[in-house]
């Protein structure tokens, strides 16, 4: 295998027609290069998008109330309504498919101006009311302290969890905020934690970094929201479909509030499961496209290699005849041709792989640099455009197989050369 006499022929063939060899090899090079860069770009897109919500409960949905659009049971159309604590209890009771249920309050009216004050520091932040369960739908990691718990809810404690940006504005660098007090819309709250969302790309109403979260019950009482629930999130139990569950939930709500069951506009909902499914289909489509284009280019490259090998075999007809006459077995000739084919393919492909990886690495560096330079902290939709080691190994395996297949017909042709015919070739 590693005998010099074997490689002599290969290098001789390549050397004798450098331009031809380079042009042929370019096909395979380009195929692999395309496959690598496109897969990397696809992965980058996927990483960028999914990174923003990869921990978000994918079996979840959010539901909110709109004005009615149909008259019903003596009520006029266009009536304003909202959810209440009782509705939550009804859902719990009547829709067993609901697993986590997290009612939410959005303090639009108490988030005006410099509503958060701590000593000389002031800031303008959104105030939301949350249940501990919400952390199961949209998980946070705690930079400091803890998240809202059941005791906070039960005792309506005046505590709050703040977003990272709130911490930056209201506290000194590296200061421990846990146990400190802040005035939030005129009421003192004790900070119990700093939360960093694991799903920074999904923001409802306000950037999660700029939110002060209060225990749901505390907020209802302290800021006079009564029994109101502004909207809520839920997850469906394992095996239950989110959209069917959402349908049941809205029907329960409509019947409690005397709304026409046919009034489709009266509730709105956002089904995370559907969105994730659609994204997955999109990624699948992108990947399929990448492989079709990449493999297509590779096949074109392989056909090129196969052609060049055919030419080489024809040019070498006499030499093959001589080799046969002095004792070369058919297998010696076949393995020679296949080695050449695989060698050409693999070298070309390896260069494609190397250059592709280099381009992806450069892109990755550029993205990281751009992100470091960026002042405003918006979500990124392109991240780590890489191909993994398995993908690289698959690509190499594909190359070797491509080379073998490309060499098959030329090798067949080579062993069909009869020594006498080759020797008569004078």
């Amino acid at each position, binding site marked *: 295998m590693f*005998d*010099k*006499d074997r490689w*002599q*022929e290969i290098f*001789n063939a390549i050397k004798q027609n450098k331009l031809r060899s380079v042009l042929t090899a370019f096909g395979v090079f380009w195929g692999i290069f395309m496959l690598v860069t496109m897969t990397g770009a696809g992965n980058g897109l996927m990483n960028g998008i999914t990174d923003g919500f990869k921990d978000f409960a994918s079996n979840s949905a959010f539901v909110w109330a709109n004005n009615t659009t149909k008259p019903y049971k003596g009520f006029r159309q266009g009536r304003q309504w909202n959810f209440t604590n009782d509705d939550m209890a009804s859902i719990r009771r009547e829709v067993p498919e609901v697993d986590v249920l997290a009612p939410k309050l959005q303090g639009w009216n108490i988030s005006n101006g410099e509503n958060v004050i701590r000593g000389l520091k002031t800031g303008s932040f959104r105030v939301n009311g949350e249940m501990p369960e919400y952390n199961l739908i949209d998980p946070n990691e705690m930079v400091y302290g803890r998240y809202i718990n059941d005791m906070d809810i039960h005792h309506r404690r005046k505590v709050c969890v703040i977003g990272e940006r709130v911490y930056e504005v209201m506290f000194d660098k590296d200061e421990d905020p846990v146990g400190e007090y802040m005035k939030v819309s005129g009421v003192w709250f004790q900070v119990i934690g700093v939360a960093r969302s694991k799903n920074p790309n999904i923001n409802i109403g306000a950037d999660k970094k700029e939110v002060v979260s209060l225990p749901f019950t505390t907020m209802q009482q302290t800021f006079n929201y009564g029994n109101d629930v502004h909207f809520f999130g839920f997850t469906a139990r394992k095996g239950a479909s989110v959209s069917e569950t959402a349908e049941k939930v809205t029907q329960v709500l409509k019947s409690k509030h005397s709304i026409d069951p046919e009034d489709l506009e009266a509730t709105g909902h956002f089904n995370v499961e559907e969105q994730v499914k659609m994204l997955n289909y999109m990624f699948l489509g992108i990947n399929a496209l990448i492989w079709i284009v990449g493999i297509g280019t590779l096949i074109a490259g392989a056909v090129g290699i196969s052609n060049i090998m055919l030419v080489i075999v024809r040019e070498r007809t*006499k*030499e093959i005849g*001589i*080799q*046969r*006459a*002095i*004792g*070369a*077995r*058919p*297998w*010696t000739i076949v393995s020679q041709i296949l080695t050449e084919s695989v060698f050409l393919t693999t070298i070309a492909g390896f260069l494609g792989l190397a250059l592709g990886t280099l381009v992806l690495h450069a892109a990755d560096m550029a993205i990281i640099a751009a992100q470091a330079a960026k002042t405003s902290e918006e979500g990124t939709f392109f991240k780590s455009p890489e191909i993994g080691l398995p993908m690289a190994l698959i690509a190499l395996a594909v190359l070797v197989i491509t080379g073998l297949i490309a060499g098959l017909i030329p090798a067949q042709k080579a*062993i069909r050369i*009869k*020594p*006498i015919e080759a*020797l008569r070739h*004078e």
Partner: protein
Amino acid sequence: MSNSIIRVEALHKSYVNGSNSLHVLKGIDMDIQRGEMVSIMGSSGSGKSTLLNILGILDNYDAGSYHLDDIHITKMNETKAAQYRNKYIGFVFQSFNLISFKNAMENVALPLYYQKVSRKKRNNVAMEYLERMGLREWAHHLPSELSGGQKQRIAIARALISKPKVILADEPTGALDSQTSMEVMEILKEVNQTGIAIIIVTHENDIANQTQRIIRLRDGVIESNHINHSFKLESVEVN
């Protein structure tokens, strides 16, 4: 074990080309002894090369029989044929047939490569044979840098390296001037002295006269087959 290295009986060979069939060998009987040096003569197209190709297992025959070293050679697969060729037969061609991108030493060593002898070992052996041909200092030259006589000596060294029992030479001097032809014949005779049988196809009387036996082909049959008395005379003279 009989004393013949090559024994051919009632050998027939036709070339079929579509609906045309050309009957080239029409019943050849021939017996060549171990260590014998024989020439095959005949006009162009009389079937000399065809016969030699069959003897070299490069081609099949249609009828009759062929024994090489008492082994009945019949239709066989190419792998087997390659093994027999490598083991028993050395070829020398009119046009030398060296591999152009291999140097003299590598060309000579090639048959051993097919026997999977290590590169170092086969190159050492090749150097010995080049030495015998007086070409040691040309070992690292490519065929294109050598004269016709040198090329033919390299081809002979290549034929010898696998220690064959018989050397088949198809017009080995056909491309050489008479001076060089004589040098090549001297080498072949020396080789023959070591006990290797040699069959030379030629149409030059000068060449045939240096062999022990001359077989004349004509239209696919053996016209004559007799001991070359001048060879004996010459031998006597030398002695």
